[in-house]
């Protein structure tokens, strides 16, 4: 079989052991894993994929610092600078009194920023047309999508089959030309 210049191979696996082995072998042989879809979190998959650490904590930190600054700034400016308030005879700049609001706004903005960044980066909530690369992808299958950057489709199929793929199909560049999944003996 002469491989296409570009496209993707979609291989589905029955168990996480096979999937992890497949990810490791194809990466060792120089292939690029486009993505992996699993019905549950598979331990060790991030390491096998050498996935970079999420940058989400930095968004949380930025949101939290923004919340803290806003809360402290607002309270100090209102109650100390602009219109000093006498509450129970206490000094106007009683930092302790500002603590609850500062704490809550820090948590609130940190949490909201994290959620917003997550939704934005993962594309959740955005309109998209589903493209089911493998029929059992929404069921119990663990699916590996391999990028065919430089052809070598035959070699890739060989490796995936050896790793225990249940089913392997080719996904072309455009959805219209997608081939029917070819049954492969596991």
């Amino acid at each position, binding site marked *: 079989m002469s491989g296409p210049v570009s496209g993707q191979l979609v291989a589905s696996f029955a168990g996480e052991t096979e999937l992890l082995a497949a990810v490791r072998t194809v990466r060792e042989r120089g292939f690029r894993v486009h993505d992996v879809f699993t019905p549950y979190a598979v*331990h*060790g998959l991030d390491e096998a994929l050498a996935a970079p*650490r999420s940058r989400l*904590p930095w968004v949380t930190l930025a949101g939290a610092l923004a919340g803290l600054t806003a809360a402290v700034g607002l309270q100090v400016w209102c109650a100390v600078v602009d219109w000093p308030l006498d509450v*129970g005879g206490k000094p106007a700049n009683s930092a*302790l*009194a500002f*603590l*609850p609001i500062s704490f809550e706004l820090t948590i609130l903005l940190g949490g909201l920023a994290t959620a917003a960044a997550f939704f934005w980066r993962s594309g959740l909530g955005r309109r998209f047309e589903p493209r089911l690369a493998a029929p059992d992808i929404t069921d119990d299958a663990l699916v590996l999508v391999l990028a065919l950057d430089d052809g070598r489709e035959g070699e890739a199929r060989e490796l995936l089959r050896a790793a225990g793929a249940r089913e392997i199909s080719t996904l072309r560049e455009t959805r219209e030309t997608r081939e029917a999944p070819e049954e492969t003996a596991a």
Partner: protein
Amino acid sequence: MSEITAKTESLETAPVRTRTATGVALALVVMGAAAITLGLRFDASRVWVDLLVDGYYFLSLALAGLFFLAIKYLASAGWWTAVRRVPEALMSLVPVAALPMLAVWFGRHALYPWTRPGYPRIMATEPALAAKAAYLNEPFFLVRMVLFLGVWSVFAVLLRRASLAQDGQAQDGKHHQHRRMVRLSAGFIVVFAVTFSLASFDWLMSLDPRWTSTLFAVHTFAGLFLAGIAAITLIVVRLRRGGSLAAAVGGSHLHDLGKLLFAFSIFWAYIWVCQYLLIWYGNLSEEIPYYVVRTRGAWLPLFILIPVLNWLVPFLVLLSRAAKRNPRVLGGAAVVVLAGGWLNVYGIVAPAVLPGPRLGVIELLITAGYAGLFFLAATRSLGRAPLLARNDPFLPESLRHHA
């Protein structure tokens, strides 16, 4: 399963303490005992303060081990099983720590004004105090003290016995023992909530019989659990460095211990601020003296140092993921929190009794003596059973743990 057998067997004979360490610990105990004996003769009220602080603090650490086990059994948690023997070692110190705490009874006149002769007459003249007379009197105080220490010791002994029995059980027996430990844990949690609150009222809050804080027991509990997690973390880090637990406890276990330490450091700070904020805002004459004393003069540096050690340092140090997974950084943070936990108890007790902070060689010697005693008892407990609880149904899950 062969992987588990191999890991269990590799830990079977691991030594947990060297001969030198035993010698040093024994020397510390002897020096601590000498400091107590001499100190009681020349500076009694100062040493009774130290005995209450150390007695309460080390008992808290032991109880934290028991509480940690109880919540893990009740939550059916699996990740922690590889380090199960560590909170168990702390738990087996409850009877050991109960005796020095009981000795505080003999220093009651130096510590608790309401036990002094003539005080009942003052109590009778103040309505708020007169109402407390039925609770704050010497016989009932002693009964409660013996009862609390006894009940905790019984739970600790029963849980430890079930745990050791599980080691020798076959397939069916190990689940039977596990269910038994879950039932014991459920009973303990309920009993502990009431008894520990009352014990904190008795031993710490009644140092000033007029003062009350509804948040006090939450504050002392937060201190207990924070210091307890720090102690468990530190022992795990030390055992790993010695090679004893290295095969079974990985970065993920450390990461989770680090998360607990981080989270409960924030919880402690939250409760600390809650109590301070409410009393400061209310500014009521029966509540505010507690903080007036502690934020004036020589007590102020101590008052500031306590949240710095219990919250600020561990918060900044453990914020990143890499820090929680690094045994050196995690162990360092645990040491800071343990010191902060001791100072927290000192900051509750000493200002009620002494005119100014007296932290010197005597405090260091006595605390080191308690630490030596704890080290001997904890390592003895660790050495008496395999370091991995091989029949715990959650052990395979814990060995594969990945966070």
